[in-house]
């Protein structure tokens, strides 16, 4: 006779029923048995909640789940190194489980695809987080998925690409000009960051976290710092919260401006690229003037921020906001009125809203396909609870929609920066961290989507830290979005997604 497991209506109900693990903040963590794990997997597959992360830990795996109200971490102990695959019923878990298998050596039972993912057989070590057995690095061949049919040909691209881009391999199978399958192979820039984080002190942790994905250095440092602060039960001072948000919005502006120009450039419309490039450069220079680094790297640390902004810095930011407000409308208008450009972007690379929801795609990828999720609203971290900003959502899901979401978010970030400059509270920049222990989770909205950070700290050191880039749930969707498009539109689709290789590969 099988035990019946009640179907929980919400994650809050589940947390109440299971009993929370003490010392995990700010959202609950529960320990589940194998039967409940499988049940949660089925409910994921039914769309009752979303998978926001899945990672290994010593003797266990954790899954971060989200419903409309909140987050929950479900932990399954797997002392024998085996756990039931969530990917067997919920494909978004697939690459995460392949990564757990590579890094920890745990076996996801029923995993539909057992090819290695991050491990290219080059490290000279197997399961670096687990047994860490030394093996010869042979660089074994990677079997790509077969595509069979008449007149099909393959185009291998990468890992070294034609532009100044990160490395990854794309295997196209095409029928003439039409892509019938794209398969990505990633992991080329895997640096073993999570292994370096284990045992590191908190300052080195912030440094490493800020180097997961350079374009999101602020978002990562913020996510890491918030997770550590949650674990230790401290709150950064108000002024630090506001200056952190100022950096986060400048980072979003710089990246969105760069992306808008780059997408247009990939449609051979160079004038927008040049103008957006000028505005992006102005933002970086203002960031440099205010925070002492163009990308604002190493400015956010657990407990607060490093260094205040002087009046010259604020003036530089105010000036750049004025300039973008003055000049950006003409650029949007040019995008709007150029039929030959829209001919390339509209209707190209459509991501169905159903898929975006299933994969819990964050950022402009999700919001251009109907998924109204923004961690600034969902996780409601300060100071965003006290700021007014729209979360634009479109349904078309094409390259055009992803460009338009960015344009709307440029406007929103300009307004946020203005609000922050007007209402920035005075006071301390950081608090001293206690030497306690605990577990913390943070979800932060980077320009690309929600960055998740989970950390367990004790005596000022990191025992385990997991950082999940939004790209984990966006990369697989690019494979779907390009389906049926022509090969020549791939750069356009790829740029409109602008997934991070480094953030994904870690």
């Amino acid at each position, binding site marked *: 006779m099988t035990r019946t497991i009640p179907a929980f209506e919400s994650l809050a109900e589940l947390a109440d029923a299971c009993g929370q693990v003490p010392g995990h903040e700010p959202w609950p963590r529960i320990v589940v048995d194998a039967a409940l794990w499988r049940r949660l997997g089925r409910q994921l597959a039914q769309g009752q909640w979303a998978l926001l992360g899945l990672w290994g830990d010593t003797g266990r795996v954790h899954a971060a789940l989200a419903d409309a109200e909140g987050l929950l971490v479900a932990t399954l102990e797997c002392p024998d190194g085996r756990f039931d695959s969530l990917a067997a019923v919920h494909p978004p878990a697939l690459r995460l489980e392949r990564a757990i298998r590579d890094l920890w050596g745990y076996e996801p039972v029923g995993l539909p695809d057992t090819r290695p993912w991050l491990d290219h057989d080059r490290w000279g070590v197997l399961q670096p987080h687990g047994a860490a057995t030394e093996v010869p690095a042979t660089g074994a061949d990677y079997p790509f998925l077969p595509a069979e049919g008449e007149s099909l040909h393959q185009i291998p691209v990468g890992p070294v690409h034609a532009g100044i881009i990160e490395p990854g391999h794309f295997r196209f199978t095409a029928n003439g000009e039409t892509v019938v399958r794209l398969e990505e192979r990633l992991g080329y820039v895997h*640096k073993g960051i999570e292994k370096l984080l284990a045992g590191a002190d908190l300052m080195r942790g912030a440094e490493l976290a800020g180097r997961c994905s350079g374009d999101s250095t602020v978002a990562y440092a913020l996510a890491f710092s918030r997770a550590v602060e949650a674990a230790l039960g401290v709150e950064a001072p108000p002024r630090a919260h506001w200056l952190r948000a100022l950096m986060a919005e400048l980072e979003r502006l710089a990246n969105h401006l760069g992306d808008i120009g780059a997408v247009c450039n990939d449609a051979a419309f160079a004038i927008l690229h040049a103008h957006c490039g000028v505005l992006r450069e102005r933002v970086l220079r203002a960031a440099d003037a205010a925070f002492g680094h163009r990308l604002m790297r190493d400015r956010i640390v657990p407990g607060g921020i490093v260094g205040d902004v002087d009046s010259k810095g604020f003036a530089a930011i105010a000036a750049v906001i004025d300039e973008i407000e003055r000049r950006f409308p003409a650029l949007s208008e040019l995008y709007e009125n150029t039929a030959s450009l829209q001919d390339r972007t509209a209707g190209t690379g459509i991501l169905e809203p159903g898929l975006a929801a299933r994969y819990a795609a964050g950022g402009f990828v999700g919001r251009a396909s109907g998924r109204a999720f923004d961690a600034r609203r969902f996780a409601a971290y300060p100071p965003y609870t006290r700021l007014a900003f729209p979360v634009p959502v479109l349904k078309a899901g094409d390259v055009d929609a992803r460009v338009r979401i960015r344009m709307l978010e440029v406007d929103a970030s300009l307004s946020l920066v203005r609000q922050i400059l007007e209402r920035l509270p005075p006071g301390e920049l950081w608090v001293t961290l206690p030497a306690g222990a605990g577990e913390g989770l943070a979800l932060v909205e980077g320009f690309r989507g929600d960055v998740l950070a989970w950390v367990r700290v004790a005596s000022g050191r990191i025992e385990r830290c997991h950082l999940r880039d939004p790209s984990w749930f966006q990369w697989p969707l690019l494979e779907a979005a390009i389906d049926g498009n022509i090969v020549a539109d791939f750069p356009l689709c790829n740029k409109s997604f602008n997934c991070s290789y480094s953030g994904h590969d870690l």
Partner: protein
Amino acid sequence: MRRLLFDSLLKGPVTEAPPAPDPDALAELAQAVNRRARERLGRSLSIRAVDAGSCNACELELHALNNPFYDLERYGLHFVASPRHADVLVVTGPVTKNMREALERTYAATPDPKWVVAVGNCAANGGVFAGSYAVVGGVSKVVPVDLHIPGCPPSPRQLLAGLLALLETAR
């Protein structure tokens, strides 16, 4: 579009004067150039960027070199799509073990005479990633390096100063 073009005509370019070559980069380069027995390159230099495991911050600043402020092409320096067309390989990142072979093959595909510029702290010695099971720890452990440009990431001005030093000495 006409209005934007007209505006640009009236306002003049935002492009700035080049920075002075960095003395440290010059010194390092002088040695490399001696080794290469004064091979002479044309004024027009082609650069191929290879990301060997960077966090992508160096790529952002390399991209910035093409924006109208820095306008790299005015020095006769341009980024090319294939190592077969390149004189200079600009390599970023600590060289991950998963990228090692790709870097070696890119180097092999670049015709002689060629120069390698390692960009960023990671490319020098692995930077914050040094010691990881997954990184080699510096470009010079895989291919010979003629010039290191430090920084995390180096600013476009620092990149430009380094590249200019390379160009002036390599002539």
